[in-house]
């Protein structure tokens, strides 16, 4: 069978018989009944949400920054290493706590 000839014939058949453009009765009414009241701009909503979230993040960052800068520090940075050491070695340096733990 001549396959390229068949292909040409079939493509020609499809070209000479374009599909119909008839529309079912009152189709536009059906579409109108399905539509929401206003067009929904999905990207606009997304962008609006993102901009609000960004504004909240900036406000939170500013408040935290101001808090860190202006509020008195609970411990001076110079004593930080000393504080860590004291906390870690608290149990080792407290024999009564060790004894209590062993008796339990």
């Amino acid at each position: 069978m001549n396959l390229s000839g068949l292909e040409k014939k079939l493509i020609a058949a499809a070209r000479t018989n374009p599909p119909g453009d008839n529309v079912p009765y009152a189709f536009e009414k059906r579409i109108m009944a399905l539509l929401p009241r206003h067009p929904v701009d999905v990207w606009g909503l997304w962008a609006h949400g993102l901009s609000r979230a960004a504004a909240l993040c900036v406000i939170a960052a500013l408040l935290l920054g101001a808090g860190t800068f202006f509020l008195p520090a609970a411990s001076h940075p110079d004593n930080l290493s000393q504080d860590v050491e004291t906390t870690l070695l608290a149990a080792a340096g407290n024999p009564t706590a060790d004894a209590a733990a062993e008796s339990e």
Partner: protein
Amino acid sequence: MEPTDAEMIAAVLNGDAASFEPLVAKYSPRVFATARRYARRESEVEDIVQEVWLKSFQKLASFRGDAPFEHWLMRLTVRTCYDFLRAHQRNREMSFSELTEPEEDWLERFVTHPEEAGETAAAARQLVERVLEQLSPPARLVITLLEIEDRSVKEIAQLTGWSVPLVKVRAFRARAEMKKCLAKLAKDKYM
């Protein structure tokens, strides 16, 4: 005087949803004709067209107006049809042994006297539908736009959103797929 497309679109965007109805009435024939190239059952065609109009209403704000509304709508239609083909691609597996009698007669005539097998015959039309249904979604879309609707590669790129090189690659593969499909048809019927 009838309002222009741009005026109707502006009215819809300003909250007058009723202005969308004349657009639906004006362009539905074009959308239906396109959808019928990709779906056979009328219920499927109506589903595609309905989806096109709902999407176009939702995305109307993204229509910039630098090209005619019809072009924008046709891009949306072609992409919706492609989504339909991809969603229904599992149903396309079928054998050519299920040809109808007129289709078999037309093929027989083509084999014996090719010049007598006219392309205007209803059987030829049904047969080409059947062959197109066997193709993968991108192959069917490209063959329809390039060979049947006689569109350029650039136009297809605009309609589908694919790049020009991708359209060319898919056109090459689609032609190969079509040949393979016709070879299968010949094998099923005459070997």
